[in-house]
């Protein structure tokens, strides 16, 4: 039985435990039908031309954990932010860990999606938002059908969340290979401000495939700062689909730091429904060996006077592969738009590959849209400059790579996170620089 059939069979068992006649049940039923019809994406689809999941689909995965995963905090401390207080939503093999988490209902809701789906008090929010942004593609709807657990964050009007929220999904490998499908729902009401950090982390060398879906809704003047840290083991793969809908004057930023994992695919879609929205999409990818990272972005401009800024940097070593497929779609009504897209890549090895495909589809006539894409090697004059000052070749390369990626880091608003990412970059490049970057 292939993975698709196994999932369809397992859905029947899963359905038995669900409440009948709930709107959610209908949603799941239609979602599984979409998956049944469309299945997993294949390279025949334009959007998946450069990323194949085939090698991952052959694995024999468990879909849920039979034993309760327990982790000592000291073993996973390094995956959390230090020296800064945060709310924490931690999941182990898809199951919520109350021991490692710090939730709240004090003025804001930072809690579990399972309880939000279950309790009547959350019904209006769930009905208004759940699966309303997610697209009708097979792999997203597979997640919808099986939605069980994840983060639920609801920030009411005028509320500024006092500290960042960390969402961490650990997989222990206790059950062998594992297929996980977390689901996050984030709703920022009018003028609400929130900062969120998400990461998926495998703790063993067993295979993990995570198909995660996040929906983010930013109401009028809301500010959502979102950071994804993708630095997983070489046995872990991730399909991360994030759908963001923005209302007028909202500002949403998504930073994606892709430093590890076997195959990582980011589907990031912004939809600007109100005027004066700003969407920021930043990414740094630094990979080696046979790693593969695919950024597939879409910014859908519908209203007037909006902005979007995309800046993706990639450094590819060994036989790693990168994909950047960024699309800006401007509707006829979206006049006075300022859309910017930049994708710069450095190939360090002759065997590394980048497939870059910027796309602009513009139907309005009074807009400013620009895009640029570069692929190159490290500047040899710059390297010589540094070496002539006594800085060794390896360190000089590291400094250059750091400088290359640096402007993407500028917009990270959590200082602790910024220095953390700096360290990750230094580790990734394999040097310790003699100062704090």
């Amino acid at each position, binding site marked *: 039985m292939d993975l698709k059939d196994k999932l369809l069979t397992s859905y029947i068992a899963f359905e038995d435990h669900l409440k009948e006649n709930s709107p959610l049940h209908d949603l799941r039923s239609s979602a599984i039908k979409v998956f049944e019809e469309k299945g997993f994406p294949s390279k025949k689809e334009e959007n998946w031309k450069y990323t194949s999941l085939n090698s991952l689909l052959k694995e024999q995965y468990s879909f849920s954990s039979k034993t309760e995963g327990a982790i000592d905090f000291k073993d996973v401390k390094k995956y959390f932010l230090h020296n800064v207080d945060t709310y924490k939503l931690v999941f182990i093999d898809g199951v919520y860990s109350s021991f490692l988490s710090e939730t709240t209902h004090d003025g804001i809701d930072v809690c579990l999606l399972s309880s939000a789906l279950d309790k009547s008090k959350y019904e209006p929010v769930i009905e208004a938002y759940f699966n309303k942004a997610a697209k009708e593609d097979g792999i997203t709807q597979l997640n919808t059908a099986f939605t069980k657990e994840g983060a639920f964050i609801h920030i009411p009007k005028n509320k500024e969340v006092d500290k960042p929220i960390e969402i961490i999904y650990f997989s222990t490998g206790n059950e062998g290979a594992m297929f996980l499908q977390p689901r996050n729902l984030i709703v920022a009401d009018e003028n609400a401000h929130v900062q969120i950090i998400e990461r998926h982390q495998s703790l063993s060398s067993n295979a993990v495939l995570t198909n995660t879906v996040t929906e983010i809704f930013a109401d009028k003047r809301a500010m959502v700062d979102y950071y994804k840290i993708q630095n997983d083991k070489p046995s872990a793969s991730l399909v991360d689909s994030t759908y963001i809908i923005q209302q007028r004057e909202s500002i949403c930023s998504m930073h994606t730091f892709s430093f590890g994992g076997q195959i990582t695919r980011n589907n990031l879609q912004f939809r600007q429904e109100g005027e004066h929205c700003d969407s920021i999409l930043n990414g740094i990818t630094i990979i080696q060996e046979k790693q593969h990272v695919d950024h597939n972005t879409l910014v859908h401009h519908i209203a007037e006077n909006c902005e979007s800024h995309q800046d993706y940097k990639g450094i590819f070593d060994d036989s790693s592969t990168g994909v950047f497929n960024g699309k800006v779609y401007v509707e006829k009504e979206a006049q006075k738009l300022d859309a910017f897209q930049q994708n710069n890549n450095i190939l360090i090895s002759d065997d590394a590959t980048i497939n870059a495909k910027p796309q602009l589809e513009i139907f309005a006539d009074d807009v400013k849209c620009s895009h640029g894409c570069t692929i190159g090697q490290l500047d040899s004059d710059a390297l010589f*400059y540094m*070496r*002539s000052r006594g800085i060794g070749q390896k360190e000089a390369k590291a400094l250059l790579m750091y400088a290359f990626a640096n402007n993407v880091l500028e917009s990270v608003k959590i200082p602790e996170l910024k220095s953390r990412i700096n360290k990750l970059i230094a580790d990734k490049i394999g040097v310790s620089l003699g100062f704090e970057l």
Partner: protein
Amino acid sequence: MLKIKDVHASVEGKSILNGINLEVNAGEIHAIMGPNGAGKSTLASVISGKDEYEMTKGEILLDNEDITELDPEERAHKGVFMSFQYPISIPGVSTTNFIKTAINETRKSKGQDDMPASEMLKMIKEKAELLDIDRKFLSRSLNEGFSGGEKKRNEIFQLAMLEPKLAILDETDSGLDIDALKVVANGVNKLKNKDNAVVVITHYQRLLDYIVPDFVHVLMDGKIVKSGTKELAYELEEKGYDWIKEKLA
């Protein structure tokens, strides 16, 4: 200190230096002048060890040690410094951090520990004052958005911090107005002592009014065709490089 013996060098198969001989002793200032395309910058790059240049013949000795096969950073550790005609910028890395890294890498190569932070700070303060540099300037990203003059002054600041035995100034005067030129030249003069040496590479005599050379060499078609004292520079300024060409012909 520096002995260049019959150096031939080519880039991408094209021969640029065709047998250079030059000897520079401690305490001396040498100027190398020549028209565009004579091989001046190539000579500077070959001494500093730039990969793109292939030395096909000859040897370069520093304190009687052959440095021909050494990497650029190894030559730097032995006391070779080149001030660039076009210094590069590194966004996100301040001048202070850059120079700290350079100094500590050099110390590491000699088996020394990192320079203590307080000592480093004191030295930075001292050298910044010497060159009349605002220390705020040093916390800015290296050369990013710097004017031509600021970049050159930054080069001399690094020179001051690294205290090399041999400083090669490649077209340090290009792009500088007279005030900036004076500041840069003044810095070099203050750093000059009996134990180090300076090689000034320039197209024009102008800089040599401020950094006064003991010897002047004329480089043409990859060879030193004439050597003399500072008077040679004035003669060149007056009569132009064609004068030498004619004399040679």
